[in-house]
């Protein structure tokens, strides 16, 4: 979620809550005879409030699971997730008096740290990556459709090359009779020039087909950009420029289209990578969060009972 001016109220509320919690905690920690403890009244209050925040934060998953439930806009829940999640961390630290305690609480604390850091990382990623996405990937598509679009791009590239080569070969065969006739009546130099021109047409067609087979097709058939020079925008530009030199200007729009096909593939690869980054952190954050909630509940039961 983009954290901007619309979060001002949440930020203010959390800052106030943190200030209040800190202002209570400081004198309490200074004057408590045995130092701040989770089992003290105030410690229990911090723990309960912190755990309540954690539970609220955890309910976001449930809220997302049932998107049509009219229990508040999902964006409100997301804001609560971010800010209450953020606030729960100092509260839990206050609850334990900045001590990690025994094996269970130590595990809990480390879990919480991982969850908190992964959450911060996620918030940062959600803040910046969508903008990169928007700015750099104008040709993005739906993530699940990427493989399908790649297949379509490969087909399109082949059609473009066929069309270009067809036009080139047609041009050569149409003009060859006329040019060969002209060559027959021309001087030696002109003759060579005309015949050379015809040969170039054939060659260009072959070169273009080879370019398709050796570079474009393997690049489009595989996900990822590393293996191919076409994955590098600068190199791709240079390669297509070389192809353009071989062809008459009338066929350059086809090469532009071909270059766009490769560019779209490059963007799809990049989108795929960014998508993994943008959503991959959840693979850490979500299971750890559930583990944290379960262990937290276990800790609460054990602590209160024994």
């Amino acid at each position: 979620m983009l954290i901007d001016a619309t979060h001002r109220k949440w930020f203010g509320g959390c800052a106030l809550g943190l200030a209040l919690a800190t202002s209570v905690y400081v004198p309490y920690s200074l004057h408590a005879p045995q130092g701040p403890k989770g089992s003290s009244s105030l410690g229990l209050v911090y723990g309960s409030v912190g755990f309540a925040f954690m539970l609220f934060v955890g309910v976001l998953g449930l809220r997302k699971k049932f998107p049509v439930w009219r229990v508040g806009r999902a964006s409100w829940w997301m804001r609560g997730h971010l800010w209450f999640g953020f606030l729960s961390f100092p509260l839990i630290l206050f609850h334990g008096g900045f001590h990690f305690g025994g094996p269970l609480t130590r595990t809990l604390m480390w879990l919480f740290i991982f969850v908190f850091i992964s959450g911060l990382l996620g918030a940062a990623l959600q803040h910046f990556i969508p903008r990169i996405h928007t700015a750099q990937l104008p040709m993005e598509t739906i993530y699940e459709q990427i493989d399908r679009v790649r297949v379509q791009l490969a087909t399109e590239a082949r059609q473009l090359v066929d069309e270009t080569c067809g036009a080139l070969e047609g041009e050569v065969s149409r003009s060859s009779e006329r040019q060969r006739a002209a060559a027959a009546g021309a001087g030696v130099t002109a003759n060579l020039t005309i015949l050379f021109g015809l040969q170039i047409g054939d060659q260009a067609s072959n070169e273009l087909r080879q370019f398709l087979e050796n570079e474009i097709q393997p690049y489009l058939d595989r996900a990822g950009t590393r293996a191919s020079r076409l994955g590098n925008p600068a190199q791709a530009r240079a390669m297509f420029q070389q192809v353009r030199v071989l062809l008459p200007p009338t066929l350059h729009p086809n090469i532009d289209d071909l270059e766009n096909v490769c560019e779209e593939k490059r963007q799809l690869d990049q989108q795929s990578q960014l998508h993994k980054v943008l959503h991959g952190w959840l693979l850490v954050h979500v299971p750890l969060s559930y583990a944290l909630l379960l262990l937290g509940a276990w800790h609460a039961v054990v602590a209160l009972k024994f």
Partner: protein
Amino acid sequence: MSSNATASIQLTIDGTPVSVPAGTTIFDAARLNGIPIPTLCHQQNENPVGVCRVCVVDIGQRVYAASCIRQAEAGMTVKTSTEPVLAARHTLVELLMSEHPSPCARQQHSGDCELEQLAAAAGIEQSRFPQRAAPRGKDDSSAVIAVDHEACILCDRCIRGCDDIRDNWVLARRGKGYQAGISFDNNLPMGESSCVSCGECMVSCPTGALTTKRVVGTELGRGEVLDPAELLHLPIFENVSGTFLELNQKAVVKRRFRAGEVICREGEFGSTAFYILEGTAEVFLSSPIAHVKTEGSSHGFFSRLKSMLAPRDEHARSEESARPFIPIDASVDLPYDNPIAQLNPGDLFGEMTCMSYYPRSATVRAQTDCVMLEMLRNVLDILQRNKTFRAQLERNYRQRALDSHLRGVPVFATLTPDFIGHLRDRVELVRFNPGQVICRQGEVADSFYLVRIGFVKVSEERPGGDLVLAYLARGGYFGEIALLTGSPRTATCTALDHVEVVRIAGEDFRLMLDRFPEVRHSLETIAHERLDANRLRATQVQNVPIDQFLANGLMEAQSLLVLDLDRCTRCDQCVRACADAHDGVSRLVREGVRFDKYLVATSCRQCRDPLCMVGCPVGSIRRRNSLEVIIEDWCIGCGLCASNCPYGNINLHPFPVELDDPVMPGRKIASTRVKATSCDLCHDHEEPSCVYACPHDAAHRVNPPEFFAGVLKQSNPLKSNPPKR
């Protein structure tokens, strides 16, 4: 007189003395005596005109004579194949070949182009003469005959076939010199002319200038193929060329159906029309007559949305149609309350499917044992242009359908039977081809039109291009504003496909207004609403920087689902929410055009040019005055609107229904029927589910002109344009 007519004369042809009746032409005299003379412009069943001059012969005079028109004289010596005569013919053929696209269509198809055969016989491979500089073009407007003016040698055989043999008087000559050619009516495209498609011109043509269209799939694989002679015995094929019917032989078949057998089903795609020869059939809709209603099943926080079918008397929507009849592709309309009707011998159904390839609009089942003609487009076109058949069709329409057609339009519901009787003999059925203008903006109005078949586009000329005001389907009407106000036409109406309209003359229309003040009142109200809506659109178009929107079609939209891509994490919660709200059928795809950092998601835009409405076989998709799309109860779920929508914004929602068992009458079977749906903005809720469920505050429903005006001013448009329903 009699003795003169039978008197014989003696002459010599190529050294052979021959005797022929007086008045015989040299050409016929030679032919009767087995001496062939080549010709192009002459054929036995037509009067000779001697325009091609290929049949020239030497009769010992200063110039060669055209044997087809020159009468034989007693003692005449005719030489048909001397060296100079052959040279003259050779030159003539060479001259004709210089302008002939060789091989022409006829030569390519059947190898019997008479000119090319003559050229081949004369050993002419390439003409010495230059080709025509200015091309004369082709005319592809007819459904059955292809016209290639390039291949025309101006022999006039087609003109004589049309005028002298068939007495149709459609074909004539046009232009002079290089511009000379054949013309239909007053130089109209063949398809738009009064041509009756009898095919005589085509069978008369010696070259590929007039050929039968070779359309893929012009043969029906089922049914009993009828001999042209059998077809000609049917009154509906009266005056059609037998040769032409022979060429289209397998495009019309006789089919027999047993009582209870289904002839065609609603929603199926097809390409044929049926004409009932014997027996009766029932036409009905098996889809439930209801629309999709989405509402919360319980109130409160955890309300779930559920989609269900509801007829209009159970759940009325704003501006819901009150039409008592459902328009279908047959000579009758179906009553809304009990959508079933009977078709009798002489009735034609499936015209729109056949001519424009729309899905079948209703299910037709044989009520008794039936015999029908099933035909493809080329044969239907021949029939529709046939005077006898047209007269029969119009008679049927006036007697059986005009009443329900007029009453199907709510504003005419109060017309009395005697006035409909008055109109019955006065209305005119007029056909228009795709793209043909029915009435033009600025013209003086003389008629009111009711759409019977097809779709009419109503557009207004504006600086910078036409603005589409509406698409009208069967039951739609136009032309009332100018007649009511006495002003020129306010819009141009164009046939989008094969359109047939009922034309009510201005004086009858005025008589109707005088006799029925409530009709006048309703029409005036609607005219005001239409004019207001047009004015509103004009304001909207003028007040926004349209060039930037037009490129993406955004200007067409009335409401957009916009995603702020800087906020959107591409989590697809909006799509999931939409699916959740509509029984698992999402009406939203998170893809579409981009404008600045915004993505206009694929969700109904309520376009001002709603292409989805073109082609609905039962005219069940239309829009309210607010431009919002509404799908009427009689949607048959054929899916054409979904495929027509360029933005993929219409979905098909399946519903379980109980249908009559075709095997065991009276028993019901469980089945599924689909209904078209589009974004309903989750009417039962304060906010659309997609917007409500977006955790990143990225999705918003906006009014495009306001929103994009904000974007262009570089302000935050979402601030000044809060999310709208």
